[in-house]
C-alpha cells in the first residue's frame, strides 16, 4: 500500500487546481470532459429522476412489482443509469415498516436516481446515528414514527445502492403520475421523510 499523502497546509482549492493543471498537461484529462461531468451532475441528474420512478410505481402496479424485484433494470427502463447505479435495490415503506438508507463508510448514493448526496447524508453524525439511534435521528428530521412502525436501516455495501419507495400519501387517489412527481423528495427516497401531502 502506498503511503498516505502528507497532510498539507496549502488550501485545498490550490491543491485541486494544481492537480487538474498537471492532469491536463499530461493529457490524462480533457477539461471539456471534466466540465461535462460536472454540468451533468450539478444540473441534470438529480432526485427528479427518482421521483419519476416512484410516481410510476405508485400508479402502475406491474412496474412497481418489477421495481421491487429488480430495481436496476426497472430504473434503467426509464433511461436512468450510470455510475453508482450498477445495482440499485428499492425498499418499500409500508404502514408498519420504514426504511432508512445510509452509507456508513463512504456515503455511497444511487446517483442515477437521486443525483449527488446532500451534505447531511455525508455528515459523520448522520452516518453513525442512522445505525445507532435511527428513531431519534428521524425525529430530528421531523419524522416521528409510532412505536408500531419498525425501522430498518440499510447500510450501502460496495455493490449495492439503496433507494426507498415511500408510501403514497393519503388523498392522492385522483392525482396523475405527473402530478405525483413533485410530492416525492430526495429526503423521502432516502427515508428521512415521508412523501409530501398534496397542497
Amino acid at each position, binding site marked *: 500500500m502506498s503511503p498516505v499523502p*502528507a497532510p498539507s497546509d496549502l488550501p485545498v482549492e490550490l491543491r485541486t487546481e494544481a*492537480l487538474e493543471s498537471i492532469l491536463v498537461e499530461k493529457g490524462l484529462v480533457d477539461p471539456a470532459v471534466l466540465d461535462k461531468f460536472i454540468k451533468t451532475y450539478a444540473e441534470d*441528474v438529480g432526485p*427528479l429522476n427518482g421521483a419519476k420512478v416512484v410516481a410510476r410505481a405508485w400508479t402502475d402496479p406491474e412496474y412497481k412489482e418489477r421495481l421491487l424485484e429488480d430495481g436496476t433494470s426497472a430504473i434503467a427502463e426509464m433511461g436512468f443509469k*450510470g455510475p453508482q447505479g450498477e445495482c440499485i435495490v428499492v425498499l418499500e415503506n409500508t404502514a408498519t415498516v420504514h426504511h432508512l438508507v445510509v452509507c456508513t463508510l463512504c456515503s455511497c448514493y444511487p446517483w442515477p436516481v437521486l443525483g449527488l448526496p446532500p451534505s447531511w447524508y455525508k455528515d459523520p453524525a448522520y452516518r453513525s446515528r442512522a445505525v445507532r439511534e435511527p428513531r431519534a435521528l428521524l425525529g430530528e428530521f421531523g419524522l416521528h414514527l409510532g412505536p408500531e412502525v419498525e425501522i430498518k436501516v440499510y447500510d450501502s455495501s460496495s455493490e449495492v445502492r439503496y433507494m426507498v419507495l415511500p408510501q403514497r400519501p393519503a388523498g392522492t387517489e385522483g392525482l396523475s403520475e405527473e402530478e405525483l412527481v413533485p410530492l416525492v423528495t430526495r429526503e423521502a427516497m432516502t427515508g428521512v421523510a415521508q412523501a409530501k401531502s398534496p397542497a
Partner: protein
Amino acid sequence: MSGTLLQLDVQGPAAPPRSNGELVFAAPWESRAFGMAMALHDGGLFEWEEFRQELIRAVSRAEAAGGEFSYYRCWLEALQTVLDRRGLVEVAAVESLAEELACRPSGHDHSHSSPPEPEVPAGTPA
C-alpha cells in the same frame, strides 16, 4: 460505462438538485475534484472500487482526526492517493505546484496564461 451518461434524463426543470434542497457542490473546487475523478475513471485510468476503498480510508482518517468534516477534501485525498500509487501523478508534484500557485501575484486571472511548468519535477521540494 463510457457514454452512458448521455442517456440520462436531461429534461425537466433547469435545476432539479436545487428544487429538492441545496446545491450539490458547496464550492467550485469541490466540483473540479468530483469531475476529475469521474473523467479519469471514465477514461479507464482506475477502477471505481479502488478509488472507493481509498475514499473509505480518507473518510475514516478525517473522522478520527476530528475537526470540521469535508467530504470532498477526503475525495481529493483519495484521488491523489490512487493517482500516486498508479504512477500517474505524484502527490509531491501536486504539492509543489500548489505552492507555486500560492505565490501568484494577486489579480491573476486563473487563466494559466503564464508559461506552464514544462515538467513538474516530481518529488523535488519547491
